């Protein structure tokens, strides 16, 4: 989870600061070395403003940012297309994961760990197992590793980290997301019927939207088709209103980040009554298995 936190800290800054870079890549397929270096320096400066283990890790990764640049260049014109907000996030995450993998010794080191993990996984699953790419198997494996390999720091210990290894190396899990530049998944939404309080989020979101200034608020409504009548395309709207699309997406991304912070604060407020109650996860964070 530590990696995911680092990745998301970097993703937030890169997407927020990358407007010109995304536009240059969309227009020309690439960026100049000078523009790229200047961009990475701006990202580093922002990360330095919030010191901590995740920022330190992020800064060390920026030493070789080529995988990120390649991932963005692979997305090309789609970085400024109708799905730009989703495409940018996916491309940046993919590039950052490749940077991380390169920094920790590349696939050679991870492949070595995978070799051992694969062996243990097979013994845990038994000879008849047909598909090991399931959370149920990762759970068994995590429990086994905590019990029988507690002192081996090279092996993963959490379900989430084990899942990352399987996604990267195990054929049962299908093609690795890191190898594909095409897919853009719709971000996950919890099931309404299962989490009825999700309904409240609609109201929370409206409240958070109303706190945005006029322009970012209307850009969000336009892009997510919440206007009446509905705007059929962001580019059509920009053309009609004479708005530079680079500016549109910059303002939109800032607005989405602000909405994310606002909604998270409101969601945390819903669960204030849990404060002081020692939950399973709190007990674990005092004595983590990894």
């Amino acid at each position, binding site marked *: *989870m*530590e990696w*995911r*936190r680092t990745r*998301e*800290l970097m993703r*937030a800054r890169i997407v927020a600061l990358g407007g010109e870079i995304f536009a240059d890549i969309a227009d020309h397929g690439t960026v100049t070395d000078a523009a790229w270096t200047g961009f990475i320096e701006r990202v580093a400066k922002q990360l330095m403003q919030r010191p901590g283990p995740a920022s330190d890790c992020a800064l060390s990764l920026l030493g070789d940012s080529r995988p990120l640049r390649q991932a963005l260049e692979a997305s090309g014109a789609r970085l400024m297309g109708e799905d730009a*907000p*989703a495409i940018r*996030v996916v491309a940046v995450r993919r590039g950052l994961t490749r940077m991380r993998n390169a920094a920790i010794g590349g696939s050679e080191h991870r492949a070595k760990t995978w070799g051992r993990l694969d062996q243990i996984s097979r013994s845990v699953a038994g000879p008849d197992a047909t598909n090991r790419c*399931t*959370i*149920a198997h990762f*759970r068994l494996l*995590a429990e086994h590793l905590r019990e029988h390999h507690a002192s081996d720091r090279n092996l993963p210990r*959490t*379900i*989430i980290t084990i899942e990352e290894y399987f996604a990267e190396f195990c054929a049962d899990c299908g093609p690795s997301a890191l190898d594909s530049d095409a897919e853009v998944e*719709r*971000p*996950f*939404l*919890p*099931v*309404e*019927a*299962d*989490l*009825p*309080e*999700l*309904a*409240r*989020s*609609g*109201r929370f*979101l*409206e409240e958070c939207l109303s706190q945005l200034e006029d322009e970012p608020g209307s850009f969000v409504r336009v892009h*997510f088709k*919440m206007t009446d009548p509905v705007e059929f395309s962001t580019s059509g709207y920009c053309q009609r209103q004479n708005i530079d699309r680079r500016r549109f997406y910059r303002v939109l991304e800032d607005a*989405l980040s602000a*909405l*994310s912070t606002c*909604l*998270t604060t409101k*969601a*945390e407020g*819903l*669960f204030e*009554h*849990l404060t002081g109650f020692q*939950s*399973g*996860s*709190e*007990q*674990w*964070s005092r004595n*983590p*298995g990894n």
Partner: protein
Amino acid sequence: MVSQPWKLDQIEREQAMTSSRKSSNLLAHVLDRQIEPEQEFDDLWFVDAVSDHLHGDAALPDEVVRLIWTSPSARSLYQRMRAELAREATQKWRRHGHALEFERRAADSLQDSDRFSASGVTIRLLYSQATERWMISLQLSREAYEDLPPGLNVRVTDGGGMVWLEGALDRHGGLDGSWTSDESPQDRLRDHPLSIDFF
């Protein structure tokens, strides 16, 4: 009984749901920009709690609901567990011969009050003169119902992508809803077959 101040009453929920549906794509993007909280959680404990909920009648503990709301990693695990369970249930239904698809209907076979059945599944359409609305109900046979883990939801969709019904089954294997489209269900049925999936 632990108090759950975040729970809504029925009317509040329906009003908020309508608003939530309109903005669900935005909500998904906003949640996707959440940063993982600094405090890690025990994913073994989390997976066990979600599994108890999906396979039985246990409610999700408040702490699990909080994590699903505030941690992208927890959400991703939760999503994957649901998807895996839905896949297993679909395979089980196929093995046991329960219907997952309904044929397109001939125009002259459609009536104002209609009922069509296939192995293990019955769908009823009823036009209420009083409310001037179509009502839809799904009823599973006991065998089909027992082949579904209690935590899964059911969705009836037509070939054109319109969702007819979705949600949790009641304890008798039924699910009801009202028609919300301007097009009549008869018109849709003429052009599209219906299918059932789980989520």
